[in-house]
């Protein structure tokens, strides 16, 4: 392989890694908001799935990707509110609630999808305006010809769907709001010590519901990207564990927004590499087992959680219902 070819391959892998990390970023940020406020969310997967289904269904019906996105967000918020009601108002077990959300979403989307479209749970393929098409930046094709820098512009910066750029904006906004605003300060506080927030005269319940709804919105973006950006419609169980990878990335990022972006990109890249290496003989090594690469995010998370490299400490009050005590 020539140097140019290797470079082209590298660009292709990076490009694919970027695409694959978009839903992870949204879902990971969703988990970040929820858990920073003290509500553990293992239902990211389920919320993404309902959003993917609702967005595909609505986009197909209206031939509008934007309306699809709106429907995805609304469906995801609906499920987020079930989780919020169980976790915040009913003080139920948040893990149990998350598991329930995931199963409910998996069952309902497949069931309703099959009943409505009769295609084994898929929605009809979407095209044109019903999808988020890649946005080509000005002059991408011409600039692509410039060696080295050209492909970076044409394939890494340009050529992604609007939602991919939204992921970047969402990361920036999450980081900014959490770090620089009143609401963010209160969210950071309520996940660590809700009693401090309560005694400062701020409603713990309202804060946590807000965070859970934000998580719903972000999962709505994640699911819509899957159905309207990455794929062309809904497939049963199309999230395929992405919600849990996002959870792993969240731990990896130690519950911070920019590192979350980094962790998701890393995991997206691993996925891209795994796809690329499928069946490829690497000179001198032989065939690299794809599964070893696929297992890395989970393995790294376990190792990190166990404190073998650094230490990931979740927000202190996450998972605990707040009961006023004196």
């Amino acid at each position, binding site marked *: 392989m020539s140097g140019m070819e290797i470079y082209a391959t590298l660009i292709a892998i990076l490009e694919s890694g970027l695409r694959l990390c978009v839903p992870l970023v949204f879902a990971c940020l969703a988990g970040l908001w929820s858990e920073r406020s003290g509500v553990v969310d293992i239902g990211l997967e389920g919320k993404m799935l309902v959003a993917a289904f609702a967005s595909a269904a609505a986009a197909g019906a209206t031939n509008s990707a934007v309306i699809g996105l709106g429907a995805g967000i609304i469906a995801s918020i609906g499920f987020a509110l079930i989780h919020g009601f169980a976790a915040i108002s*009913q003080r139920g*077990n948040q893990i149990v609630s998350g*598991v329930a959300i995931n199963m409910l979403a998996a*069952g*309902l989307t497949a069931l309703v999808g099959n009943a409505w479209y009769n295609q084994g749970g898929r929605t009809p393929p979407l095209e044109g305006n019903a999808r988020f098409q890649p946005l080509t930046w000005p002059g991408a094709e011409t600039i692509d010809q410039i060696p080295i820098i050209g492909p970076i512009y044409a394939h890494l910066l340009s050529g992604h769907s609007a939602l991919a750029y939204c992921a970047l904006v969402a990361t920036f906004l999450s980081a900014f709001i959490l770090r620089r605003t009143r609401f963010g300060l209160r969210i950071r506080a309520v996940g660590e010590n809700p009693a401090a927030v309560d005694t400062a005269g701020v409603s713990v319940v309202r804060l946590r519901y807000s965070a859970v709804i934000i998580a719903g919105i972000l999962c709505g973006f994640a699911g819509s990207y899957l159905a309207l950006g990455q794929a062309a419609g809904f497939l049963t169980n199309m999230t395929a564990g992405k919600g849990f990878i996002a959870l792993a990335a969240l731990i990896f990022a130690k519950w911070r927004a920019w590192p979350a972006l980094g962790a998701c990109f890393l995991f997206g890249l691993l996925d891209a590499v795994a796809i690329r290496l499928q069946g490829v003989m690497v000179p001198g090594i032989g065939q690299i087992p794809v599964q*070893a690469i696929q297992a890395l995010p*989970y*393995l790294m*998370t376990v190792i990190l*959680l166990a404190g073998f490299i650094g230490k990931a400490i979740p927000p202190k009050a996450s998972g605990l219902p707040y009961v006023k005590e004196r």
Partner: protein
Amino acid sequence: MSTPIELPKWADVSLVPILAVIVAFLVAGLVVLGIGENPVKATVLLIQGALGSGEGIGYTLYYATNFIFTGLAVAITFHAGLFNIGGEGQATMGGLGAALICLNLDFLPWYIVLPLAILGAMALGALWAFIPGYLQVKRGSHVVITTIMFNFLAATLVVYLLVNVIGKPGSMSPETRVFAASAHLPYLHEALAYFGLKIPKSPLNLSFVLALLASAFVWITVWHTKLGYAIRTVGHSPTAATYAGISIGRITLISMAMSGALAGMLAVNEILGVQTRLLLEFSSGYGFIGIAVALMGRAHPVGIVLASILFGMLYQGGTELSFEMPRVTRDMIVAISGLVILFAGALDGLIRRPVAGVFARFLKSGA
């Protein structure tokens, strides 16, 4: 609000879970209505499919076997105050354990290879739960997150092995060769035919008997052994356990390992009993439904067996129903499981509170 809602014991173990299931079914009924089918008719078809024929009953009990194993696995950790949601991964590893024994030793007679294969399934299942337990005890990482990660690790490990190491040579599909006949756990209709009894053919196999034995074993362990006493003490009150000289770490390890072994036994039913080869995704969500079963069965073996039979009916009846009413697929059952987990678990208070209110009024007027 924060005080536990007091109910008579019988209401707690029977009325509340039954109401939770009823609410879950009502919601499911609305969904059926929403997709333009008649929920009453669907229910009738479902029950007929599950119990209307000998074959149907066989299938129902075959599915129930899976749920008993995974339900017991979740329940035993509940008693220790833990939450093992890694049943899927432990079952997958159980399948690997059974397959490794069978692939290497199935030239031996059944009375050697079958017990070894069952032990193999239990051992690898136990290992896959023991490690998260160990990491919690020694390194402080929570079992919930670790077991989730271990589900995926088990899945990728088994894919790798099936593709690269133990897969059937020359086959494109990732599965092992079929085990020799000595490593097949007999179907119940075969076993009973040996004694001259004739029952309809179904995948129901001797694992069902093992599942009942496992239920008895869990019941005896939890309520009639010193170990069970220690497990329940840790689950109810870690401070009292420390006072009583019970090591919380040791109990965590033991209950996780027992839980993993039980989840691993799912493979006995699926791999040794039915598939007779290792293949991908044979655990197909049974591990998660075990959570619903454990919650509904109030973590008691009798409740778990009953809840498992209910879910077995849903699975079998659901399959039949999807033939008659193609719009109502078996995914319905997954949704119902989710609803049961929601109403018998996280939203439990929503049902208990009104029930407790009724009881309080009833007791007051009765006094």
